[in-house]
């Protein structure tokens, strides 16, 4: 079966902490503008709220508005027991969307959310996976990648050791 070019392109639904790393800490607004021309980038309204609460820069807000498609997600009730019956964290909304749209990739860095994705056989990647996607699309050059690596390494924002190792693999190869 031949897939149309649109169908071969991945779709992503983002969690808050990955947006903070990519947009705020790495300053990838321009790269997102280009990525959004080729991919569908979704963000649940709950995540938009979380991101905007912590972001003080208009540039970041503009990136969110121009590059991401806001989603009014219907909560997947079957996920509630895994989140102690609370729907306050961004991940439950991200995973709810991906559960109903299996071709979509969740973009989550936190281990808890990634574990739930694995348990439900949902596609999952993280901030580093998005950087890799930008690299493969030619949006980020080798010098951009080195600069991003330095920024992520110097920020105090949490990334697990596994993700730091992935970052090195992508930036140094």
């Amino acid at each position, binding site marked *: 079966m031949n897939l149309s070019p649109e169908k071969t392109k991945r779709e992503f639904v983002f969690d*808050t*902490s990955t947006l*903070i790393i990519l947009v705020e800490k790495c300053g990838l607004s321009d790269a997102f503008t280009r990525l959004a021309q080729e991919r569908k980038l979704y963000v649940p309204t709950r995540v938009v709220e*979380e991101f905007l*609460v*912590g972001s003080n820069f208009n540039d970041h807000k503009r990136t969110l508005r121009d590059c991401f498609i806001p989603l009014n997600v219907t909560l997947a009730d*079957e996920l509630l*027991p*895994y*989140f*102690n019956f609370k729907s*306050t*964290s*961004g*991940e439950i909304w991200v995973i709810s969307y991906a559960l109903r749209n299996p071709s979509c990739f969740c973009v989550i860095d*936190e*281990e*808890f*959310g*990634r*574990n739930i994705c694995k*348990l*439900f056989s949902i596609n999952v990647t993280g901030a580093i996976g998005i950087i890799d996607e930008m690299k493969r699309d030619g949006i980020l050059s080798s010098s951009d990648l080195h600069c991003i690596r330095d920024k992520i390494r110097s920020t*105090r*924002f*949490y990334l*697990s050791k596994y993700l*730091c190792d992935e970052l090195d693999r992508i930036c140094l190869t």
Partner: protein
Amino acid sequence: MSVITEYGLDSPARALLILVLSIKDREPMSKLHFQKAILYFERMQKQQDIDFSDFHYGGVSYELQENLEALEEYGLIDRVGNKYMLTEEGEKTARELIKQYDKETLRKLVFAKQQLNDLPDKELLYLMYKLFPDTQANSTEYKKLEEEKQTLIRKLFCKGRITAHMAAEWLAISEKDFLESLSRKD
């Protein structure tokens, strides 16, 4: 007679003991860990098939303990050191028993075991107390653990047992502040 009736596995306590030991590559479990994993599962299911009481270590069940002893006597469960595992007969029985459960129920049980089974006792107890605050009632441990909450919460987050949102809530700070407070060594 089926193995289910032969070993009284129509009792939820017995069935859950066999099932929890059979999942996740049949990882052995300590008494504390299977007690808490089954309690976690029951809370996820919003059911109270097994009688739990709140003692010094939070929710524990004599019903589970009694049935564990019965299953040891039947030769379905064996103890190695302080950990329990299924015998060959226990595994055969588990394969029959598992057919009676739907995928969603088993997924919750796998999750409960995955969440708890490799945690040191302090992290395990603290996670359970925080997830299910009613189990703090008669606890002798909770107050002591609260003194170590900064470390315990960070460890639970880094091991993927709680979300950043939960961690921040338990520490009464913002999620972003929590993530920024973690250093590389975490």
